[in-house]
């Protein structure tokens, strides 16, 4: 009997609970798949479904192309060359991560609108005239592609740069000896060996791009994600929403699988013998200037431009600044971040520690399975959480006469945290896992030999070693959480706004100029998180 009890351990129980939680969205989508649909699906198929799929596809191609150029371009230049500003750009480029796609969209619109910011600038510089007819329109699909690309290319930059750092000078010298030009060295040696990083980065970008809601909705670009939202919200056809979600998910899982496969391959590409660190070539003259310009333009457009546009709006409409509201929004955002991070770190440690001491196969599978939470678009995830809460509430009422389950989840910080947990668990658990993988088991054995208990080892050996990883994970989670929009929008409590939801509210309710304050603070906080962890970010990827 005691043997049986021994097997029921903490690790197994907690991982079963977590996997059940993470499985909720998939369960709901599948169960709704076989239900009746309204005629909305028929109308869709006749008219716009093809357009939605085309738009999603065009968006994807556009974003992947631009993020490739920006991400690989900057990574290449800062990894292999020294030029004025190269040190600065190495970390400053990451700041564009602080600007979510939808805020970029508001800035683009503000700048290029009729009688917008560009109009005011031109009037100020050159006097009154009808500039409107000459101002280009950057909106709709093009605007979406730019906005999303600028907000996501950092993934490609970081993952590519991580592999560039492992390039051996040997190979480059060999290429030079063979008479290759710089371009050929790039094309035939550097890029191929960095391919896993590039593919991993592009897959992440693709997943995020497909799930984007705020940007495309603002620009009125109909994609599969907006169709899912529409069928649920406007046509009240949850089953159509589920069917579209299902197809979207298949696509996402394919992309995710590609990313995983390329990541696993990358371990074998790190050279060990005869590895010489890259000697950066110093650039001068025109070349240096052009490359500086390239990096500067990307930095300016992706980070400084939206920041300036929001500051301009703030100065123009000072009435939008309300100190009390800023304080409340900060408090809400920080509270939500703190609680979620705590929950995620604690459970990630439970699972990872469990893997370490028990070597349980199920736990390992869980860490892989949990990625599904990340892959599912936020809109779908929140709708499934809502639906699931109603199912359970009804079930408890009918069979156990317990009511009020719904109130635990809908409109509470707890419910919000649960949804965030499902979405970001894989980030936390895999982040800590990669740290643990670098920690040799023999260190644990040495610690036990010295008389430390399991807990003692955990506190005195594991935590200090994983300190950098923890900072990195916490900051990455914080950045993602502060930018998060659809889940927060759908599940938040009364009187509860975060910077992201407040900006969205103003934008969708014809008060675009008022998005300045929440946007600025969001960018500020996210930039702060990036600055705190910039060393770890550059090392950790």
């Amino acid at each position, binding site marked *: 009997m005691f043997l049986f009890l021994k097997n029921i351990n903490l690790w197994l129980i907690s991982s079963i609970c977590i996997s059940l939680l993470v499985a909720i969205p998939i369960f709901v989508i599948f169960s709704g798949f076989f239900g009746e649909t309204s005629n909305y699906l028929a109308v869709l198929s006749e*008219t716009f479904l093809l357009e939605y799929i085309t738009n999603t596809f065009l968006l994807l191609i556009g974003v992947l192309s631009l993020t490739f150029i920006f991400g690989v371009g900057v990574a290449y230049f800062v990894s292999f060359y020294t030029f004025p500003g190269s040190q600065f750009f190495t970390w400053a480029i990451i700041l564009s991560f602080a600007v979510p796609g939808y805020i970029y969209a508001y800035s683009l619109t503000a700048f290029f609108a009729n*009688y917008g910011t560009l109009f005011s600038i031109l*009037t100020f510089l050159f006097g009154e005239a009808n500039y409107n007819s000459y101002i280009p329109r950057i909106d709709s699909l093009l605007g979406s592609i730019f906005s999303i690309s600028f907000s996501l290319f950092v993934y490609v930059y970081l993952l590519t740069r991580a592999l560039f750092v492992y390039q051996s000078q040997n190979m480059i010298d060999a290429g030079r000896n063979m008479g290759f030009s710089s371009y050929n060295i790039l094309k035939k040696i550097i890029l191929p060996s960095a391919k896993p990083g590039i593919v991993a980065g592009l897959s992440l970008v693709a997943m995020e791009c497909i799930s984007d809601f705020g940007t495309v909705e603002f620009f009125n670009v109909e994609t599969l994600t907006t169709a899912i939202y529409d069928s649920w919200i*406007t*046509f009240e056809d949850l089953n159509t929403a589920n069917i579209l979600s299902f197809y979207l998910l298949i696509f996402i899982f394919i992309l995710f699988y590609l990313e995983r496969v390329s990541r696993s391959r990358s371990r074998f590409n790190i050279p060990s013998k005869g590895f010489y660190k890259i000697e950066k070539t110093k650039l001068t003259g025109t070349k240096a200037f052009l490359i500086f310009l390239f990096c500067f333009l990307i930095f300016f457009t992706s980070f400084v431009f939206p920041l300036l546009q929001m500051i301009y709006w703030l100065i123009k409409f000072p009435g939008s600044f309300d100190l009390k509201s800023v304080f409340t929004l900060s408090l809400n955002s920080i509270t939500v971040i703190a609680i979620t991070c705590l929950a995620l770190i604690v459970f990630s440690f439970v699972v990872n520690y469990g893997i370490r001491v028990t070597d349980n196969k199920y736990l390992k599978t869980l860490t892989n399975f949990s990625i599904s939470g990340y892959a599912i678009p936020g809109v779908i995830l929140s709708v499934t959480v809502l639906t699931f809460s109603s199912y359970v509430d009804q079930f408890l009422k009918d069979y156990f006469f317990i009511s009020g389950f719904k109130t635990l989840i809908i*409109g509470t910080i707890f419910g919000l945290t649960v949804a965030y947990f499902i979405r970001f668990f894989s980030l936390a658990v895999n982040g800590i896992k990669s740290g643990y993988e670098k920690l040799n088991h023999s260190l644990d054995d040495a610690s036990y030999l010295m008389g430390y208990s399991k807990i003692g080892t955990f506190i005195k050996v594991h935590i200090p070693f994983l300190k950098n990883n923890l900072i990195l994970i916490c900051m990455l989670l914080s950045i993602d959480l502060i930018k998060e929009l659809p889940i927060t929008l*759908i599940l938040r409590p*009364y009187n509860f706004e975060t910077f992201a939801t407040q900006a969205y509210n103003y934008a*969708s309710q014809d008060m675009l100029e008022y998005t300045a304050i929440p946007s600025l603070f969001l960018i500020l906080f996210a930039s702060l998180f990036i600055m705190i962890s910039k060393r770890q970010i550059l090392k950790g990827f």
Partner: protein
Amino acid sequence: MKKTIIVGIFVISNLCSAFSAEVNLYTSRHYQSDTDLYKKFTDKTGIKVNVISSKYEVLEKRLLSEGKSSKADVVITADAAALGSATKKEIFQKIKSETLNSKIPAIYRSAYWYGISKRARLIYYNPENISPNIVKNLNYEDLANPMFKKRIVIRKSSNVYNQSLVSSLIENNGLSKTSKWAEGLVSNMARKPKGNDRDQILAVAAGEADLAVANSYYIALMLSGKKGPEQQAAAKKVQLIFPNQSNRGTHMNISGGGVAKYAPNKENAIKFLEFLLTKDAQEHIVNNSFEYPMIAGVQPNKLIAQFGTSFKQDSKTKMTSYYNNQKKALTLMKKAGW
């Protein structure tokens, strides 16, 4: 002794609920000035207003998910179709209020909901680019006229104000005529629909199009300077007409609300609604969000009143049709390529 204690507790608990100082408001109105309005209510009555504000469809989903455990007291919308939807889905409860019934005209209220303010959907034009003679007696139906090819701007079909307009057209002209009208309108669009109502007016001011369809309060908002000097200058270039004056009248819409079915603070909810129809509140509304007032004895703000206040309003088309025809309207619009 025991009896005294019991009576005492009873009295105190009633007093407490009388001073129970809050009302929970779910609103899809999107005007910054509303926050001051709620403050006025709190100052007057001591009742705190807790607000959750979002697009109506999201609020509705939330309310329906919450069901009996919902803490919503008052639900306010910015469109009549939303009121119809809320009624159909049993989000409201019937209340008795002589105040509301006496102040609000019958067509702008029902057993479940009460109109708070009015707005008209108007056609804007730039006299520099199009002669006032052409637009003088325009009807909504004329927007499909090929003479306006590529000269009209209007918001996207997902916008509920457009859906209500199209619903009203279906109610008056029938489904197939309105379908053809929508197709004609789409081929007259100067650009793919984008931006909000103000962007349509700005497009007309900039010469990008000749005609724009937008709600009445936006022009006043721009003229007030609240949206910056550029928009104010642009708004001065633009004139408007009240469509359908020679037949049923201009399409009207309302912002309104009702008491939620499971309201925990029902008395406070009724007080709040009644407050919105007081002279004080109505004047705040007309002078800040530039809508038309609901009650008699209050004048619209002069920035919108300057265009005329005695225009013929469509009082024939029932507001309930905005919701009843909404799905048909959206399907029709999407099929037309809007």
